[in-house]
């Protein structure tokens, strides 16, 4: 650290700002270096490696879309669902994907409100991930309706039957929550992108790219009169996204809790689902960022400090879900209800015990290594743990859905559920859609929020405030 930086740090502290503990941008680049570095990703030639990866993910997506086509044209009888198990991989995948999205909103909105400067390097890709994950979730939930071409029946619109949707149903709340979530996330993401698209418009050489970024940047100039409104807009969007992210997974959990089935009808579900969503989302951000950082060579911007902070959040949220897993058992016993007690014993030791213990080990045991600083800064290790958590969180949703449904109140109608190739293909397909969209994003959209990175660089903000001080954006 140079003397100048040290002085700036002390000055920032004197103004009541959060002291920067560890450099968030390595190697002291100039602002032009930042522009050039991010723009070079967009301007560089498309490599064979990129095309090869894209064709693999594209093929996965195509295979999934074929399975969807088969489902839609034939009917959801091609899935492994049966009576009593009416929800299987479809809803598991829906909850899984919606949950993944939550980390993006947490990073972009909640960490923004808490003035966590380290979010700036990772918020853009996390927000993109949110949008793509919600697209996958919408794909799952639409296909599970069976006749997705009648999706508009889910919306309140005047029709010839003079009937309206049932607003007392949590499934209806879900329609509103997920669509609001998608719209607000997309708006938030796009508003954040506008200044960076303008930067690219002025930077790129190719005239086609110039035109495309020119149109998308909407004529943004960087005028202080615009920034003045922009910062307020960004703050409001962050402010409303924070309760939104908490509400969306709470509403998703209502799909279960408002029902009266043992194992689902519990008050712990909303916070437990939100913690699990953030947990799984951070794991997915971690998986993607470890790869992106390596391939696009973004080590300067996405540092070990960022990874360490994310690992701490995973450790914390992992223990929250662990607490919920254990508390569920206590409450089942404490409720005195035979059905509740039995369903939880069956969850841990019944037909689906393998799924339960996969979940428990992946989600509760594996993140415990992050108590150690050396583990929090070990990239191969955190990559493996993040994959474990992705798997564990998928199994959490599967366990909740399958164990409650497969043994209902009447032993004569007990059953077991296994997916068919169609459901497995659709799940692979959602990964294909997700990764394809992420790859396209990483190549053609600034993966790092250029303007935000510049605003936290040393010397970016005035050191002497005349009229006021301390009101950060």
């Amino acid at each position, binding site marked *: 650290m140079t003397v100048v930086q040290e002085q700036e740090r002390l000055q920032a502290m004197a103004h009541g700002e959060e002291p920067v503990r560890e450099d968030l941008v390595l190697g002291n680049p100039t*602002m032009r270096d930042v*522009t050039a570095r991010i723009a070079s990703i967009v301007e560089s030639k498309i490599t064979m490696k990129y095309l090869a990866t894209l064709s693999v993910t594209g093929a996965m997506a195509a295979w999934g879309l074929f399975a969807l086509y088969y489902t839609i044209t034939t009917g959801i009888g091609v899935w492994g669902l049966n009576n009593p198990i009416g929800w299987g991989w479809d809803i598991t995948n829906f909850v899984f994907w919606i949950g993944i999205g939550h980390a993006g909103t947490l990073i972009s909105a909640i960490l923004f409100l808490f003035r966590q400067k380290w979010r700036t390097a990772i918020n853009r890709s996390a927000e993109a991930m949110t949008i793509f994950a919600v697209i996958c979730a919408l794909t799952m939930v639409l296909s599970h309706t069976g006749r997705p071409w009648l999706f508009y029946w889910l919306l*309140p619109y005047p029709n010839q039957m*003079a*009937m*309206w*949707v*049932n*607003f007392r149903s*949590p499934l209806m*709340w879900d329609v*509103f*929550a997920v669509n*609001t979530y998608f*719209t*607000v996330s997309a*708006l938030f993401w796009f*508003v954040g992108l506008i*200044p960076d698209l303008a*930067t690219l*418009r*002025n*930077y790129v050489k190719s005239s086609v790219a110039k035109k495309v970024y020119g149109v998308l940047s*909407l*004529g*943004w*100039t*960087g*005028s*202080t*009169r*615009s*920034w*003045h*409104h922009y*910062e*307020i*807009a960004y703050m*409001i*969007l962050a402010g*409303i996204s924070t*309760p*939104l992210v908490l*509400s969306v997974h709470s*509403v998703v959990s209502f799909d279960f809790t408002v029902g009266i089935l043992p194992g689902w009808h519990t008050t712990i579900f909303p916070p437990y689902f939100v913690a699990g969503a953030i947990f799984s989302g951070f794991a997915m951000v971690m998986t993607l960022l470890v790869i992106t950082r390596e391939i696009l060579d973004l080590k300067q911007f996405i540092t070990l400090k960022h990874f360490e902070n994310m690992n701490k959040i995973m450790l914390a949220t992992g223990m929250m879900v662990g607490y919920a897993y254990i508390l569920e058992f206590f409450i089942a016993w404490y409720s005195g209800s035979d059905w509740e007690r039995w369903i939880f014993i069956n969850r841990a030791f019944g037909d689906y015990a393998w799924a339960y213990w996969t979940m428990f080990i992946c989600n509760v045991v594996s993140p415990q290594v992050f108590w150690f600083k050396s583990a929090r800064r070990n990239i191969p290790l955190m990559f493996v743990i993040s994959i474990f958590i992705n798997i564990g969180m998928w199994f959490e949703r599967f366990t909740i859905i399958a164990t409650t449904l497969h043994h209902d109140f009447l032993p004569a109608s007990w059953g077991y559920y296994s997916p068919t190739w169609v459901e497995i293909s659709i799940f692979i397909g959602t990964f294909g859609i997700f990764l394809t969209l992420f790859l396209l994003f990483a190549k053609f959209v600034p993966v790092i929020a*250029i*303007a935000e990175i*510049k*605003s936290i660089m040393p*010397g*970016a*903000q*005035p050191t*002497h*405030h*005349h*009229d*006021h*001080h301390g009101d950060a*954006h």
Partner: protein
Amino acid sequence: MSTKPVGVIGEITDVNLTMKVAEKLRDAGFRNWDIYTPYPVHGLDKAMGIKRSILTYISFAGLLGGISTALGLQFWTGAVDYKLNIGGKGFFDWQFSIPIDFELSILGTAIFTVVGLFHLCRIPTWYNKYQDDESFKKATDDVFVVTIDADDDRFSATETASLLTNLGVGNVHLVHATAN
């Protein structure tokens, strides 16, 4: 070039000087001027004397619009237009209306905020009178660019330019309109 200038433009590289120039130009009474920056500079809007944004009111209107739509829709469809008894639940109760009230408030706020932002920033737009100036393009990279428009009452092609130069602004030059 015989056309009248549309304004004068200059470059600043130091953020503290930018603040100083902003305060000086504000105190000199200019109205049609601006400073373009690659990222939001804390306090520069105040230094330029920009009034508080009305965006918060627009957003609040969106919130009110969203929540009244939600309440109105759920009440009218359930308790007025077509009453359906489902499990003996009320036709309308504020308790079950909360999730949708909440989501539509958020949605209304978000849409009004973004539309309001676009309106206040006057985007989308396809034209800016400085757009072809090389200095102007640096404002999205690493330079703070100050412009004073020719239609400002206090503008004078020679004096305004020298005012900027004297304040320490670099590469001060007049900009002429391009055919568009």
